């Protein structure tokens, strides 16, 4: 029983990390259909934002809280510029988008290498996040609990914005039918830019949070990119609740497989499960119910 609870908690913890990394992608890829291979570098930019903020401010606790909104702005601005300069010209050309954003990702990695060096850097964990908390016989580090809480806040905020604000309605409308959105008086260009800003900003926040559980290097983002795409695809394109369930399920699977094997083998196991799942249900966990998808 204790082992089961432990695995579930570890799964939730890993799942919340995956979810934070994937949430922005569920907007830019899931909602807009843009395969942005530079998403990982936006996460990396968030990591370095946390590092720089701590270098400037010093106090680990204060700098973490300040770095979160700055990370959002840094990631968001990078996404905004990428969309305006390149992606806008490549809508409906997914392979070109993939190649271009992959190239942008490599450039951003090199910029990070030139700016901060090839060696990994570390961000100090604030005093209030050191140690662990005992939950049902399993000790979870406070940093992981913080990331879980942040993932919940981020998912709730995105859901509320999409569901209840005029901006959210416009995003959902443009995703549903671009031409019809234009005829409703909505500037799809502005909505694309805003969606990309928010999605990339969420990657920045994820990056700041991930410095609490690992070191930061120019290739940090790459290690989260594939997992983030898996979460969005398995959850169902554009479905936030699908992303949440997929992230927790993948995190738990990873934890269960790791109990009896290595992390690498566990990853292989997760991939096999996803391949089988997508063979049976290619549309992912959730899809839209409609009479007509006009």
């Amino acid at each position, binding site marked *: 029983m204790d082992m089961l609870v432990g695995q579930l908690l570890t799964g939730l913890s890993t799942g919340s990390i995956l979810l934070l990394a994937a949430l922005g992608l569920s907007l830019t890829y899931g909602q807009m259909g843009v395969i942005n291979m530079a998403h990982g570098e936006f996460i990396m930019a968030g990591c370095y934002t946390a590092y720089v903020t701590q270098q400037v401010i010093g106090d680990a606790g204060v700098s973490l809280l300040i770095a979160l909104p700055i990370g959002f702005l840094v990631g968001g601005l990078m996404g905004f510029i990428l969309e305006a300069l390149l992606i806008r010209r490549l809508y409906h050309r997914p392979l070109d988008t993939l190649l271009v954003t992959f190239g942008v990702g490599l450039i951003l990695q090199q910029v990070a290498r030139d700016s901060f060096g090839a060696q990994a850097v570390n961000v100090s964990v604030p005093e209030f996040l050191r140690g662990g908390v005992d939950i049902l016989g399993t000790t979870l580090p406070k940093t992981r609990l913080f990331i879980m809480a942040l993932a919940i806040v981020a998912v709730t905020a995105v859901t509320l914005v999409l569901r209840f604000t*005029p901006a959210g*309605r*416009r995003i*959902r*409308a443009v995703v*549903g*039918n671009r*031409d*019809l*959105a*234009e*005829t*409703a*008086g*909505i*500037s*799809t*260009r502005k909505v694309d830019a805003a969606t990309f800003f928010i999605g990339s900003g969420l990657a920045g926040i994820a990056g700041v949070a991930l410095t609490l559980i690992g070191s930061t290097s120019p290739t940090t983002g790459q290690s989260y990119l594939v997992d983030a795409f898996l979460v969005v695809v398995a959850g169902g394109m554009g479905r936030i609740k699908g992303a949440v369930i997929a992230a927790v399920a993948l995190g738990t699977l990873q934890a269960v497989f790791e109990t009896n094997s290595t992390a690498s083998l566990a990853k292989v196991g997760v991939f096999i499960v996803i391949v089988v799942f997508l063979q049976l249900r290619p549309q992912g966990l959730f899809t*839209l*119910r*409609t*009479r*007509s*998808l*006009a």
Partner: protein
Amino acid sequence: MLELRDLSCGYGRSAVVQGIDLEVGTDEVVSIMGHNGAGKTTLLRAVVGLIPAMGGTVALDGADVTAKPTNKRVKDGMAYVPQGQQCFAHLSTLENLRLVADGRGRGKALIAEQLDMFPALKGLLGRQAGLLSGGQRQQLAIARALITEPRLLILDEPTEGIQPNVVAEIEATVVDLAARGGLSVLLVEQHLGFALQAASRYYVLRGGRIASHGETGSGAETDVREAMAI
């Protein structure tokens, strides 16, 4: 109100519609008729800016809007109800209406006015629009267009694929809207009876060009049938 001069448009490099000269006057209802593939929908899509004009001009109230994006033309007073009862399928009925009302000072009043015009929608406000029937979706599409407070309403086959009792309601609504004044209507319609009853003038498209045009009234149906080679 609307003036098309030598308008050509199409997809890729092939022009589907060529050399169109067409006018819709203030408070006037004008019908466009033609067989499937005559270029009616393509022409309307160019008028609202969803596809670019290959040549010629589109003017609204004397101002050239040929280069303007669709959303700006909507702000200028043009509203478009596309073919196929299109709605934002994954948004609720109310969200479909609020989407257009957002940012308008009279937003709530505009929604209320449309719900009075289409009372069938009142009980469906929380339902996902993609789950509405074809007739309900068409009413929603017209309501959404009217919330933009247009001066020119462009309707693409509003009665196509809809059950007969709802067709009569939609036809009555279009006639009623035109009679109120303050709104010009450009109507693409396959049902000759409705198209000729609602409009004061008509155009017939054949092979992407205007085959005939004139005023509705006695003899108009014969002329339309000849132009369409029925």
